Structures are given as C-alpha cells and as structure tokens.
C-alpha cells in the first residue's frame, strides 16, 4: 500500500459545512486514481493535504509507511521533493529558468542522480525536445504543461499528484497532454492521483472516486 488516507476532515474558517468530512482511500504502487467532483467539492483540498501543502483537521495520511501528521515542515518538504511529483493546473514553471533547467529542477532540488541524456530522452518522449533552450513564456500552454509533467517525473517519484492538469488547455491539447501524462507515469511505475472535473478523462484511470460535499462515493 503506497498511500493510505483515513478519515480525513478539513474545515475552512467561516464556512459552516466541512470541506472534507471523513474521507478514506488507499492507492497501490503503479495504480492510477481519478478524483472527480464539482467545484468546491474539496477535491483540490484533498490533493493539497496529501501533498503536505495544507494541514488537515483530523484523520491521517500515510505515504509509503510515513505518516504526514507526525512530520514537521522540513520533513514534509523533504518528502515532497523526493517522493512526490506535482502537476499544477497553472503549470507553475519557473519563468526565469530555461525549459531544460525547469525539467531538471526538482531532480536538482531532490539531489537525484540523473544524466543530461535523461533530460533529452524525457523531453523527446514529451515532444518538447526542440524547446529545451527556450523560456516558459515562449511556450504554448500545452507545451508548458508537458514541461511541468516532465519536471514532476524526472526524479522518479513514487506518487504523482495532478491537480486539473489540463484545466487550462483546450480540448484537443488536453487529450494529448493527458495521454502523455498517463503514458509517462506508466513508464516510471509511479502511482497517480488525479483531480479532474472531466468524466471522460477520469474514465481512463484504473479507479475513480467521486467527491461530493466532502464525502467519497464510487
């Protein structure tokens, strides 16, 4: 069992209903899980809590045997940089670094060993091999997200978290990028937890869960 989430609760100040109300789920290594739900259903919050970016009010998150709530900020950051890969809706590339540097960035951060050739190979399979010297602002949205996917995978994480990875892309691009995400995650053998509002994309995951008013349903 790679990820175990049990009885997670979360409230936001000033909001009567809990965002998460006793959510439990688990994920095996190599498994893909799609999390769907309406806007405000709490799916992004769940993802942030799993990533250690936000604390929960109750319940536990266990990644590869380590319990998040027992960790301090530095330990959570360490876990994020070496065991997790995160793909944001906004891409969140570093604008002042080149594409090549962005691809390698988290691997550098995590101190992971890689070869320059690995960056090229990854870029090739992401279809951005000819963009390596460019800067993020020179790329289209689809290309930027490919870079973000590459960045999340370069250091071979155990778990990839993707928050609406195609939310900012048009439909055609969206499909292509999503294919790529599944394919690349598959290659590394990492587990994937995906938040999306698209039923069509969610259908392509091994499992799917629906979040509604802070509770899960199959």
């Amino acid at each position, binding site marked *: 069992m790679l990820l175990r989430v049990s009885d997670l609760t979360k409230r936001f100040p000033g909001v009567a209903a809990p965002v998460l109300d006793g959510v439990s789920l688990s994920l095996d290594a190599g498994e893909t899980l799609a999390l769907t739900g309406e806007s405000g259903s709490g799916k992004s919050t769940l993802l942030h809590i799993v990533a250690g*970016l936000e604390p929960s009010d109750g319940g536990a998150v266990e990644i590869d045997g380590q319990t998040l709530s027992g960790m301090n900020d530095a330990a959570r950051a360490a876990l994020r940089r070496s065991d997790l890969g995160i793909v944001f809706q*906004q891409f*969140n590339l570093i604008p002042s670094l080149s594409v090549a540097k962005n691809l390698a960035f988290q691997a550098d951060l995590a101190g992971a060993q890689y070869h320059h050739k690995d960056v090229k190979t990854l870029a090739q399979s992401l279809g951005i091999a000819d963009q390596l010297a460019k800067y993020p602002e020179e790329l289209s949205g689809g290309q930027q997200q490919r870079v973000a996917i590459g960045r999340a995978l370069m250091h071979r994480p155990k778990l990839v978290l993707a928050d609406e990875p195609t939310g900012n892309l048009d439909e055609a691009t969206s499909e292509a990028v999503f294919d790529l995400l599944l394919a690349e995650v598959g290659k590394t053998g990492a587990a994937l937890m995906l938040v999306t509002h698209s039923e069509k994309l969610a259908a392509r995951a091994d499992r799917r869960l629906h979040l509604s008013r802070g509770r899960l349903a199959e």
Partner: protein
Amino acid sequence: MTGAVLSALLSHWRRRPFQLVTLVLGLALATALWSGVQAINAEARKSYDAAADTLTGGGLSNLVHLDGSIPHETFIALRRAGWLVSPVIDGWISAQGGRVRLLGIDPYTAPGDSTIGAAIGPDSIGEVVGAEGAILTNATTAARLSALERPVNVSNGLAPGIALADLSVAQVITGQSGYSRLILLPDQPLIRPPLESIAPDLTIERPETAEDLGRLTDSFHLNLTAFGLLSFAVGLFIVNGAVGLAFEQRRPMFRTLRALGATSRRLVIMLVLELLIFAIVAGALGIVLGYLIASLLLPDVAATLRGLYGATVEGALTLSPLWWLSGLAIAVAGTALASVSGLIQVARMPPLAPAKPRAWAMVSAGTMRWQLSLAGGAFAVALLAMVLGDGLVSGFTLLGGFLIAAALALPSVLAVLLALLSRFGKGPLVTWFWADTRQQLPGLSLALMALLLALAANIGVGTMVASFRATFTGWLDQRLVSDLYVTVASVAESSLLQGYAVENGVVVLPIWHTDGDVLGAPAEIYGVVDHPVYSDNWPLLSSLPDTWPRIAAGEGALVNEQLARREGLSPGDPLPLPGGWETVILGVYSDYGNPLGQVVLPFAVLTARYDDVDRSDFGLLTDDPDALRAALTGDLGFAEDQMVDQRALKAFSMQIFERTFAVTGALNILTLSVAGVAILTSLLTLSAMRLPQLAPVWALGVTRATLARIELIRALVLAALTFVLAVPVGLALAWVLLAVINVEAFGWRLPMQIFPMDWLWLGLASLAAAGLASLWPARQLARRAPADLIRVFSHER
C-alpha cells in the same frame, strides 16, 4: 538542493538585468556617498592627530611659563637639577598659501621615541643640527617653502603644514631667544628637587590632544557626515524599492519552490545569501566610487579647513583597511535594513500563498495614518531639541527630526492635495487621471519622500550658501576699508612708507596686532587709529552710544561676534585682557570666516600696553591703488609680494568661501540624482503591476500613446507638488542651518535672504528628473504589445 534553489533565485536577475542594475546602483551610490564623506573625515582627523602629536611631543607633558617664554638659563637650571626636559621653540615661517608652523627642537635632549624623534633619522641628523642645519617638512609643505633661502629636507612622516628644525635654526628664523615650552621626558631620574625650588614660575601642562583642533572643525565634519547620512538614506529608498520589487515578482517562484519541496528556512537562507552577494559587490563598487568622490572633493575640503581654521590636511587620500571594511559593513547593513521586511514575509509565507503579486508598494490608508503619527512624533522631538537643547548635536537633532517629519507626512499631505485637485476635473479621462494618481500615490510615496528630502536639502543649503555669500560680500566691502595693504620688512621700511605717505597725501592706517589669550582662548588683539573710514564702514552688530569717539579717546574696546557669543559678552561688559588689565566693551562687530576671537583696541592703548606688537602691516587709502603700488615698488623699492590690493584680497577671501561650499554643492547634486533614480525605479516597479489597471482603460478606447502621455504627466504633477511642498521645508531647513547650526558651529549668525530664482531652476531640475525618470516606463507602455494587455483579461495574472 542549495544549488538548485540559489540558481533559480539568481536566474530571476538574469532575466531582469535592469532590476539588478538599479539594486546594485542604489546600494553603490548610497555606499559611495557615505564612505566618501567618511574618507574625507578620516583623512582630516588623521592630519589633526599627526599635527597634535608633533606639536605637543606625542602626548608628553610640558613645562610652560604662564606669560612668556622660558629663558635658556631656566632650562639649564632644570637639567642640572636632574629634571629631564627638552626645549621647544614654537613659531611660524611664512610660506606660499599661508604660514607654516615651525618647531625648533633640541635633538640632544628631545625624547627619542616621539614623533619628533622619528622624523630625524641617523641619515639626516648631521644635516639638521647647527645654525646652518636643514628644515624638515613633508613633501607638500616643502614645496610651499621653496622660496625660503635655507635647505629644506623632506621627511614624509611629518604632518602637513609643520616644519621641524634645530633650535639654533629656529632661533634665527623666529628671532626668539627663549623657549616656548619644555617637553617633560616620560622617564625621570631617581632623585629630583621639587619644581618650585628651581623654576617657580613654570607649571606642568598635561598633554594636549588633537581635541582642540577637533572641536574647532567638528562642526564642519558634522555637516559633511549629515550630508553623507542623508545621501545614504536616499540611496536606501532605491534599494528598498528594488529588493521589494524583486521579492514581489518572485512570489510565484517562491510558491513553486515551496510546493516542490524547498523548506522556508532554506529559501530565506538562500535569499539572504543572494542579498549578501549583492551587498558585497555593490558595496565594493560603492567604496571605489566613494574613493573617487573623496579624492575629488578632498583638495577643496583641505583648502577650506586651512582657510577657515588654519587646520592643515593632506590633499591626498591614504585610507586604512578599516575604512574599506566599514564601507562594506554599511552596504551590508543598508541592504539588511532595506530587505528585512521582505525576508520576514517570505519566512512566514505558507506554501499555498496566493501567487498573484499583492501590490507590495500599495501602502494602505492605515499605513499612511501610521506614518502621519510617526511624523508627528518626529516633529515633537525636533521641537523638544529646539526648546530644550543647545549645542550642535541638538541642532542636528532638530534638523533630522524636522526632515523625517516632513518626509513621513508627505504622502498624507499629497493625498489631501490630490483630493482637492480632483474636484476641478472634468470629463471621464481627467476624473480617471486623478483617481488613478491617488491610487498610485502610496506606491510612489517612498520615491517622493526621497525627492522631497533631496529638494529640501537643496533649497535649505542653497539658501544658506546664498545668504552667506550675499552677507559675506557685503561685509567684505565694508570691512576691507583700505585700498592697498602693505607689509614692511623692517623699521626702516616702515618710516620710509610713512614718510612717503605724508609727502603724497596718502592716508596710512597701521594694522598692528598682537596675539594673546582672552578669556582663556587664543585671540587676536588689533589697534585702530582714529579715522572716519572706520566709523563710516565698520559693521557693528551692537554698540554703546558714541562708540567711535570713545575709541578715539582711548576708552574701551570692540570685540568680534565670535568672542561675544562664546563668552556671552555685550556692550558695556568689562573685558579682561592679557597683561592683567581690563577695559570695557563698546561694541560688537561681525567677523565672518574667522575662527578666533578678536579684540580691537584704540591704537595708542595697544602700543602702550603691549611690547611685542607686530608692527609690519599697514593699510593705505588712495584713489589710485595701481599708481600707488607702482610708486612704492619703483621709488621706494618695495617688493611686489609685500603688497596686496583690496581687489586681490577680496578675490582671495571669496575663493576660500567658494571652496567651503563647493563640497556642499557637489553633494547636493549627487543627492538629487539619487532621488531621480529612486523615482525611476519606483515607476518601473509600478508599471509592471499597473497593466491590470491600464488594460481596461485601453480596452475602452484610449490609445497606448495617450496612456503613456498620461503616465508622464502624472509623474510631472507629483514631482511638481512635491517641489511645492519642498520649498517651505527647505526654507525651514535654511533657517535651522543659519540661526541654529551656524551659530553653534561657527559662532556667527547670518541674516537669511531668499533667492526665488534659484528655486525656479531647482523646480525645473526636479521636473526634469521626474520627467526623465518616467520617460522610459512611459515609452515601454506606449510600445507594449496589445497581446500583453489582452492577457490581463484571459489570465489569472
């Protein structure tokens, strides 16, 4: 991780080199002005110390005779009783550019490990001892003594303006037979009789220090330091702007870094490291600039100090490693000061903080209220200093408190002004202009404060200098009553001159004087003959009735303003004078530029009371100074350099004056330039953030060119308003300088005169600075790709 984080942070600067330039430039300028001023001060202090060391025998005690010189016999009596003392003759040699202090010493008995001792090594001793011996000075002073018909050897350990010679040489040059003082050697033998039994009229004087000269020149250096600090503060505005902008623009990056697993501690450490690198680079650059500034200004400063105080300072810089280190330290401290709030924000920032730039510079209404109350506090401190304090420090507290108060109150005052102005607006664009200007005001407030300070300093110091110049020239016209001044070399020449004058109907006014201690401080004592030229021209500040007739009758004395202020004297007060007698003060006259107290006695009283009067100077009244001059050189055989005419004397005095203020003038210009750079950086900062505000206006049909013009006009309007507010602040500053600081520092008070034409130029300069500073951002806006503006609508940011 460290390398990855640092390279990500630094990559920002590679993509925005201009921001890096402003940061480094601001810091470098701030450091440069600060360390330049410090270098000048340090150099001057070093010169004072060296001079004091040589003059007083390096912290050794002296035996002195209270009224007069010490006979050789007393020296021998002391030595033969076991008192190890060494005689010194203290006098002057005339030299180019003013006189040089001459110390006659006895190499046989002088303390071996003193500054004096170090100056004469085994190589030079043979050339120094004996009546034909060489004079020792440093290279600069040696050049000034080139006219002296004696060998002058260069010994560079000596302080500038000081000459060392063997006693026998000094006796010949000064004509002094006794000794000025006896140095008491530090190690005395086992058995000595008490001093009273051998030389009852001598007393032991504990060592003097550089303090005396230091006190005299303190005000001047305090002035410079204040300017240096002001410039540094203005420079810090720039740094604060650049650092704040860089932090704000990198907020998304910080967020991503944190999400990817960089700890906040690491992030802050890396940012500190980054800033430290910049501070050191910019600090080093600033120190080099500071060195340049100092070496450009130092010759003028040296000339000022010599002219004004008789303090000699080397015209060349030699700086200690400590100075270089302190320059770096101030750069680092300044950076820390400018970036501490940004760093605290980053440290506290949660990983999911909004990536959207909060308008960092958008000071809230609350902050403005807070600033206003702080301004009230600073103003209160200033008032307290004025009411309660006295002395230079409280003068500067008043100055500082007042300026800080004015700067802090500026945004609030401008906001009120803009609100008033907006009432007169017609049409949507004008309404939008005022509203938008008010919204921008907080973001520009730091830069505008810098501009206000620079302008106020400019107006204040400019008014002071101009007032001084006007008063000084007027005073010179009055005071320099004679048309030609002649110095005679002998009694024979003196009678020759007076005989010639009687024959040719030229009025001769003796300008005879002696030096002595009046009320415990060195003073000059002059005598005046009874002649209407004095009563018609002399600028009396206050006097008893019938001043001049009473002077003519031989009663009473006049004192200069410096002496009167220092001792709290006014007409009618008794005045004890050297030689143990007393007279009454009949009047006080202004005597600008003289650091010493001065007493003017009736001529007959001066000659009757004092034997050692210097009788060599005369003033001549004539309608045709050139003809008189020709006659004196031709018929009577006077040398050209024995005479100086009124014009030359005025020119020389004005030259000293101009040099005094050349330094402040240069610093003024630098401060204003720094303020210009502050405006530029602020505008650039804002221009990036203002796209969301401008894009809707553009979308509604205002061209980019119009928007750019409006931006330019906005900068000009704000600069103009700031200038208008700077005028009263500057005038208040001038008043403090003239009525408080000057009186404390120099001992005279100047009437304040206002020169609105100067403001006109300054106003134009400030508009030009603001215009130039906004030109580039406006141009950028005019050329902005429409796509950039569209993106505002399609993106979160």
